[in-house]
Structures are given as structure tokens and as C-alpha cells.
């Protein structure tokens, strides 16, 4: 054991004493789950990220060099994500980190980024407490559930004429957070809660849960679930013959979700930070490029990867060098024009200013029915 520790110290010493060799590229490290239960969504982030890097390199790169994206698999687990970051820092000498997908994994790599004094941007992890830890190197270019609930509770309650709502969420930090935030804001508007239930990741049969839902007779059901669980759940709601209004958060306004859910997706509402049908010239150009490259329209996570990498690239360009402190300072001054509005960061590193949308799925397309800028949290 002592030998291992000594060896580790020696290696670190050697690594520190060798001056970083002049690289001919600017390296950005990306940690995403590429295997495991959310590998599918992680892959979308990577696709978006690669597109952003390609764009920036086509425009001449940054600091006169090409950007090189190095992707590592964090499997959505804290331990593997930390290993991935150590490798990216020690071996690849990246200048900025982007990742990880799951909030618990991101929470684990935040102290590592701080230890190495490297800026870390996440485009996905939405657990509210991440930006409350006072880590100056951490930036979240994503919405939190609290922000989404605040933005849409009123529109939902009025547009769908909700009086009694049932809440169903996946049994993890994110699902429970979503259910809590939305039920709090809807209850404040006088909407009654008739049922709250959680199910485990990877559950396939919801008939028992839906039997309870049928008995509770809600006029709307809120669902916090990702593509696979959500699509099966929505399908089975229709298979049970229920015609209650469905709305929710998660990667719902995506081509894959609609394809998996089929006709049952018609008429459901989703509150999302991004939809491919958002009607801005910048977004239309993005959708066209994404579709040309991957043959599918971008969803929430494709856009998240694209935005996070663009924010990182622009910050490095503004910093005028690869010094981590300079990059961190220029990240804080971000004003990035994304396909979905303008991203700025608060002092705590929480993004605001971008548009979030409420979509309704009509004829297999997510149609934007309301759009509102996400305000800085108070």
C-alpha cells in the first residue's frame, strides 16, 4: 500500500515538474455517460458537443488553434466520473471541463475541478443545490426544475384549466425534485393534488400505478421522466383508456420520444428548455446542421451539448489564452447567443436569460404554444 502511495506521489511530482508541452490544439474534456441506463441521452449531448466543436473549428478555432474535444465515459456514477476527470486533467491536460450528466456525478467532480482550478460547465445537471455550494469554478448552463416550475405553473394551470392534478415521477433526485417544485407552484395557484407516486428507473409496467390514477380522477397528470420510462408510461396511459391531460418535464419534445410513443403522444404537453421547433433563425440554422449531420432533429440534450461547448469555446477565445483563471473570469461574463436565447451567468454560476418553451405534440411534431425567458433565481 505504501508503495502505491509513494508511486502515486512520485508520478504526481514528475507530472508537475515537466512543463506542459506546447500543444497544437486547445483541449476541452467532456464527461458523459456512454454506457449504462442513461447512455442514450449522454450520447445526444456528445453529438451536440461535436457539432459545436466542428462549427468553431470551421470558423478558425480559438486562439489560432483547433479545438480538440476529448470524450470520456463517466457512466453517470460519481466514482467513474471522477476517474474520467482525473484522466482528462492528468493525461490529456485539458483546459476546461464539461460534464457530467447526472447531478450526483456532477456533484462528485466539482471538488476535483476546484482542486485542479479548472472551469467546469454542465449543460444538463439540474439539481438546484449544485450552484449553492460556492464553487467558483462551476457553471450551470441549464435550467433547474424550480426555474421551470416558476416559469410555467401559471400558464399550465390556466391553459389546461387544471383543478385536480396527479404527480408521477422517477424515483431519483431529479424526479422527486421536479414533482416537488411543480406541485408547490401549482398548489399555490389553487390546484389540488390528488395523487403523488414515484417509480424506479427502468420500470416497464405502469398498469398498477395507472389503476390508482384512474381511481383518483385527476384532470391533469404531471410526469417527470426521461425518454424511455416516459414513452412507455404515456403509451400505457392511453392503453388503459384514460384521456386525462398529460404534461411533464424531461426529454419529451424529441423525435425519439415521439417515435417510441406513437399516436399516444398526441396532445401531451411538455415544459422544456429547448425544442427543435423553436422559431428563431438561429435555431433553424442549428436544426438544419444537426439534421444534416445526424439524420435526426436535435432534442434537449443535443442542444445542451452544443450550448455548453460553445460557451466554453467562446470563453477561451475571450480569455485570450489557456490560463484557467482567465477562462473562469471570462466565463462569468458570458453572453452567449444560443439557438434558444441568450445565456448569462449569475454570480453563483447559474445560467439565466434563455428561453424555455411549453410544447404540445401535434401530428408528431412538438408545437411551441408558450415561450418565456428563464429569470435569474431570487
Amino acid at each position, binding site marked *: 500500500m505504501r508503495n502505491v502511495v509513494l508511486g502515486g506521489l512520485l508520478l504526481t511530482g514528475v507530472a508537475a515538474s515537466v512543463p506542459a508541452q506546447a500543444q497544437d490544439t486547445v483541449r476541452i474534456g467532456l464527461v458523459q455517460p456512454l454506457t*449504462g441506463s442513461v*447512455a442514450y441521452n449522454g*450520447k445526444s449531448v456528445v453529438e451536440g458537443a461535436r457539432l459545436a466543436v466542428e462549427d468553431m473549428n470551421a470558423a478558425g478555432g480559438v486562439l489560432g488553434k483547433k479545438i480538440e474535444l476529448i470524450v470520456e465515459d463517466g457512466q453517470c456514477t460519481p466514482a467513474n466520473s471522477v476517474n474520467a476527470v482525473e484522466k482528462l486533467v492528468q493525461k490529456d491536460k485539458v483546459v476546461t471541463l464539461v460534464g457530467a450528466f447526472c447531478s450526483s456525478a456532477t456533484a462528485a467532480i466539482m471538488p476535483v475541478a476546484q482542486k485542479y482550478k479548472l472551469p467546469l460547465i454542465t449543460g444538463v445537471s439540474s439539481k438546484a443545490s449544485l450552484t449553492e455550494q460556492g464553487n467558483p469554478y462551476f457553471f450551470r448552463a441549464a435550467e433547474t426544475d424550480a426555474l421551470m416550475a416558476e416559469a410555467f405553473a401559471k400558464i399550465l394551470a390556466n391553459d389546461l384549466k387544471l383543478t385536480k392534478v396527479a404527480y408521477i415521477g422517477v424515483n431519483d433526485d431529479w424526479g422527486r425534485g421536479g414533482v416537488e417544485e411543480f406541485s408547490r407552484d401549482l398548489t399555490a395557484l389553487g390546484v389540488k393534488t390528488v395523487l403523488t407516486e414515484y417509480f*424506479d428507473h*427502468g420500470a416497464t409496467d405502469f398498469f398498477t*400505478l395507472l*389503476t390508482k390514477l384512474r381511481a383518483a380522477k385527476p384532470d391533469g397528470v404531471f410526469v417527470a421522466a426521461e425518454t424511455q420510462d416516459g*414513452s412507455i408510461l404515456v403509451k400505457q396511459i392511453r392503453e388503459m*383508456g384514460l384521456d386525462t391531460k398529460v404534461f411533464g418535464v424531461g426529454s419529451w419534445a424529441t423525435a425519439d420520444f415521439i417515435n*417510441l410513443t406513437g399516436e399516444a403522444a398526441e396532445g401531451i404537453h411538455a415544459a422544456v428548455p429547448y425544442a427543435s421547433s423553436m422559431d428563431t433563425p438561429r435555431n433553424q440554422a442549428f436544426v438544419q446542421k444537426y439534421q444534416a449531420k445526424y439524420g435526426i432533429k436535435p432534442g434537449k440534450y443535443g442542444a445542451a451539448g452544443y450550448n455548453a461547448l460553445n460557451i466554453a469555446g467562446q470563453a477561451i477565445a475571450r480569455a485570450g489564452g489557456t490560463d484557467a483563471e482567465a477562462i473562469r473570469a471570462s466565463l462569468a461574463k458570458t453572453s452567449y447567443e444560443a439557438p434558444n436565447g441568450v445565456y448569462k451567468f449569475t454570480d453563483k454560476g447559474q445560467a439565466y436569460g434563455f428561453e424555455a418553451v411549453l410544447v404540445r405534440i401535434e401530428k408528431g411534431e412538438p408545437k411551441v404554444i408558450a415561450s418565456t425567458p428563464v429569470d435569474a433565481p431570487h
Partner: protein
Amino acid sequence: MDLFPQFLANGLVMGVFYALSALGLTLIFGLMRVVNFAHGEFYMLGGVSGWFVTNHLGLDFFSGLIVVAAFMAAVGWLVDRFLIERVRGQGEEPGILLTIGLSIFLVNGTLLLVGPAPMKVAGAMAEGPLFFGPIAVTKLRLLAVAVGIALIVGAHLLIRRTRLGAAMRATFQDPMAASLAGIRTGHVYAATFALGCTLAALSGMLLASIYSAQASVGGLISLKSFVVVILGGMGSFAGAIAGGLLLGVAEAMWGGYVSMGMVDVIGFVLVILILLFRPQGLFSIRTERA
């Protein structure tokens, strides 16, 4: 109380699905005594190849089912001849390690080839609800239950009534005596393993048409199938059905009257109770292997 009929119906449907997905394991773990941790991955391969033949080769559901059965039988045969054969007769641990390795290989191979996205297997019929009084089911679920029962009965008859079945039973009771009696035990092992694989894959494709196929579904299926086999008793088809129904109904009642969030715990609570009070399982034929 008015919810009870629907909970019971849900539980029974799920129970048949559990029995169906555990059938293959009843053979491989129950009869051959190979602790097969790759069972869920064979199930997953059934769903993924079902997606491939219906979506990319344009076959209808039932022709697809036959093609998948033939393909997975070949896979099972090869796995037994080239992998399981090498650790046979060396106790359980090498088999456990081998099948854990195989399951990791199969999951990641599938991720590499078709990616992590959930895939839809085109079903045999439409998905609208059918109502029997207060109970809602779908045609597709009823079809899956019917096919499931047919497969269970078919496998039972194969083991009990055919020459191959007799050879299987003889081989697993006493391989040495069986081979002295002129049974080609190597082929019997491979045929049993192939049959177990095929059953797992058929249930995978059938259930993927109701839910969806995905590279990562195998782990949970393996766990639930072990629960069903242990509840029912090793190697017993009646036991697999009883174990499946017990698990399905228990989960539906717990989920219905208590909480959905902890439903996966129920199976393991049942296993602990069974091991404490009736360790041979509900239906086990009480014979020890020579």
C-alpha cells in the same frame, strides 16, 4: 375495493410475463445447474433482434418470432459448445464468472452495434384498450399471455413426453450413467442450453412489442427470473408459473395498496421467506443430483 379486480388482473398478466421470461432460466439454472447471469442478456438479444427483423427486414411479427427463435437457438448452441462446455463439471463458480463476463460482453457488444436508444418492436396488433366490466387490458397483452402459456405447456411436454426430454432428464440426474447408456450428453447439454436461450429470447421479443427493447434491460430481468425460479422450485415448470404469478400479484397488490416506489423489493422479501420456510421452493421435485 373497487380497484381490486384491476389490480388482480394486472398482477396476473405480469405474473404470466414473469413466468415466461423465467422459463429459459428454469431450464438452464433449474435443470442444468448453470447459474446463468447472462439470462437477461439473452432476453435483451431477443428484443433487439426482434426489432431488427421487423424494422429492417420488414418481416411481420410472427415470421419475425420464428427467425429470432432459430437465430437464438444457434447462438445458445454455440455458447454451450464453445464456452459452457469448458467449465462443465468444475463446480458453480467458474460458470458464474463465465456468464457474468458473457453478460458484460453482450451488453456492450449490443451498445456498440445498435447504440443505447430504446427500440420499438412493431406489435402483432393494435394497442387500444379492451374493457371487461371495470377491467382494462389490451389485445397485445392477452396475446402475449396466450403465447406465454402455449410456450410453457410446450416446454413442459417436450421435457416430459419426448425422447429428447427423457435424455435431458437422464443427463442431468447422472451424466456418467447417461453417457454409459449411450446418450450423447454433449449434444443434450447444448440442446438444453439452446432451448433455454430461445425461450428467453422469445419472451424478450414478445414483451419488447409491449414495452420496448433496449441494451440495458437485462439486469433487472435476470434478477426477477432468479426470484421466480427460486420461488417456484428448481427446474419445475409448474413452479415457474406459480412463482411468476405469486411475484406478479404480490407486486401489483403492494404497488396498489402501499407504494409503487419500493415495488422491486417485494420479490426479494418473498425469496427470503421461501428460503426460510420452504427452501426447496413451492413445487420442487425433491431429488438431489448424484
